[in-house]
């Protein structure tokens, strides 16, 4: 390696070695652009702007400045020694995205898209949110750049995540409750799309995950790949070698693809995406389309979905609002089919147990989303020898979840 300085890895460079998607946004049979005609022109305009600015040194320097001074990058790579010792197997390193400004990886992407919005002359940004982390990250950068911000959120999620709702309002955003369908993330996405098609002249839609019509899956990945670039160099720097396995939770899949992507060509590095198994795959109450779903078309792209035999999208279940989504980014669908990444599911109770373990053993309170990745790591680590390295994306902090955890214990805060 010519450069093992983590600070260098946290900068976004142009002309990366991305070969997929193709020009129409396809990852093999997945991805694409399945939207109503009104959005085809705006998506083409966005694609051109994104491709242009990702090669523009001035834009990249602005983005890198914000990532360093506003977000606080690079985020540390932390050797969880006590936890590794407890599990008695592989050494576990946590990529601390929970330490970013706003407390999760979501801000890497919102900073990028909001700067792009400003370059495109858009004065209003809209976003969908599930757990509220992407909504908070969008409202935050909107405040930072002086842009109007409207966040769509399912009314069920609003009940589950009242702290984040208040946080968004404090930041000056308008939070619109969505009462349609299952009243969760997928319905918030539908409503944001409807807003965008109506206000397309002045509005930029910041999608929070690696799903949606092209160019979103590629663009969000490129903004999140800073996670994997940093982690790769930090791991080499701290241990002199690459990790043996990567583990990340997968809802839409943005933190996972952000970690995985810079390692795709490192064939010795295994990748595990952890979906929400809810009450158990066998109960049908889960949010694990890669584990137990089938391919279909939703929200502008072809990917694995939770659907019935009529092609209707079915309601999902997860303890974590951020994973409660019936689809998944098309690049994950592709990585699954070609066998480059493996996708597994962790149930609610397993995730909850891992939440408590990490909090007590390492003094780090993880988000319930990230706890799914931690719970799988607890299964994986003991099977590996002590010289092996598992690198886990700790995608967000758990402060937002303490009410959920308290309620499960029958405690009212």
């Amino acid at each position, binding site marked *: 390696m010519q450069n093992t300085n983590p600070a260098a890895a946290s900068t976004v460079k142009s002309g990366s070695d991305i070969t997929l998607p193709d020009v*129409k946004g396809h990852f093999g049979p997945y991805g*694409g*652009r*399945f*939207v*109503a*005609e*009104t*959005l*085809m*022109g*705006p998506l*083409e305009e966005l694609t051109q702007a994104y491709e242009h600015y990702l090669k523009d040194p001035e834009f990249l320097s602005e983005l890198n400045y914000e990532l360093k001074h506003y977000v606080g990058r690079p985020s540390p790579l932390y050797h969880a020694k006590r936890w590794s010792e407890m599990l008695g197997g592989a050494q576990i390193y946590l990529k601390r995205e929970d330490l970013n400004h706003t407390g999760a990886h979501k801000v890497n992407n919102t900073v990028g898209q909001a700067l792009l919005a400003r370059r495109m002359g858009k004065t209003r940004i809209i976003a969908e949110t599930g757990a509220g982390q992407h909504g908070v990250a969008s409202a935050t950068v909107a405040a930072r750049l002086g842009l109007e911000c409207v966040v769509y959120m399912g009314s069920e999620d609003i009940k589950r995540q009242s702290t984040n709702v208040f946080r968004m309002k404090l930041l000056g955003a308008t939070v619109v409750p969505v009462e*349609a*369908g299952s009243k969760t993330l*997928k*319905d918030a996405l*539908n409503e944001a*799309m*409807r807003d965008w*098609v*109506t*206000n*397309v*002249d002045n509005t930029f839609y910041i999608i929070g995950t690696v799903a949606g019509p092209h160019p979103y899956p590629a663009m969000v990945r490129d903004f999140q790949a800073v996670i994997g670039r940093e982690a790769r160099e930090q791991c080499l720097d701290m241990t002199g070698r690459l990790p043996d396995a990567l583990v990340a939770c997968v809802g839409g899949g943005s933190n996972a693809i952000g970690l995985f992507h810079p390692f795709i060509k490192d064939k010795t590095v295994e990748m595990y995406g952890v979906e929400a198994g809810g009450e158990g795959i066998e109960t049908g109450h889960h949010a694990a389309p890669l584990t137990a779903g*089938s*391919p*279909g*078309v*939703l*929200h*502008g792209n*072809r990917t694995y*979905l939770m*659907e019935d*035999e*009529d*092609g*209707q*999208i*079915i309601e999902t279940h997860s303890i974590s609002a951020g994973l409660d989504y019936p689809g998944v980014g098309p690049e994950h669908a592709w990585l699954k089919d070609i066998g480059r990444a493996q996708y597994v599911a962790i149930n609610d109770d397993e995730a909850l147990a891992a939440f408590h373990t990490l909090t007590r053993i390492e003094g780090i309170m993880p988000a319930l989303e990230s706890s799914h990745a931690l719970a799988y790591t607890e299964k994986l680590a003991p099977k590996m020898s002590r010289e092996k390295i598992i690198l886990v994306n700790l995608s967000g902090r758990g402060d937002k979840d303490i009410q959920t955890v308290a309620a499960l214990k029958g405690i009212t805060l």
Partner: protein
Amino acid sequence: MGRITECFEALKAANHKALIPFITAGDPSPEVTLPLLHTLVENGADIIELGVPFSDPMADGPVIQRSTERALKHNIGLHNVLDIVSEFRKTNKKTPIILMGYLNPVEIMGYGKFAKQASAAGVDGILVVDMPPEESDELQSELKQYGIDQVFLLAPTTSDKRLAEICSKASGFLYYVSLKGVTGSNQLNIEEVAGKIAHIRNLTGLPVGVGFGIKDASSAKSVSAFSDAVIVGSSLVNLIADLADKTDRMITEAGKFIAQLRMAIDAPH
């Protein structure tokens, strides 16, 4: 020649414009759809757009969203919609039926199976809202084998380059979305739409219909002055929703509403 093209040619020869109402299949209940279809035809509908319920109708406003939810309470899926069309065809061999909906139900049935079954049921065209021409080659080749037209949308945001590409792939007619927004919006600018339609006519010989934002006899009349077809959805669906628990009256009122539009469109301009 398919029923859609036959229909437009006959109307053109008579110097008439097409009236195309939209209803969601199975809304408010499955047994109402067939009598509603016949009433729409008896009162002047030339072509019918029959909505296929989908759980995530991303391009629809609240009125059509709720109609979809009512239909889904009865678990109305694509195969039920095809059954309804088969029933309709037993007594009506003439009025073209276009299915309108989202891709996933068709995707799950399979393109080949869908084309075959839709053709057998008597479907004449399909408009897949979230399937632009760029993604439609595979479906289109299946549809062509069975003579089913694929109707595409044109929008105010469609560039001239795309316009030409879409015109080259479309058959039956073109559906111009009169405004930026979802179904049921209320911001129709007649002059602007007239200008766009004139421009589209320079690029294609296909009939051009206009939908979105047409609420009543007056807007239907204005739009029919410069288009080949007037498409009315949310106002009709609203009327159906209001009378959901009074089936007989709902069917009568839906018929009256279509008759009013018919009269307005046919009156001398």
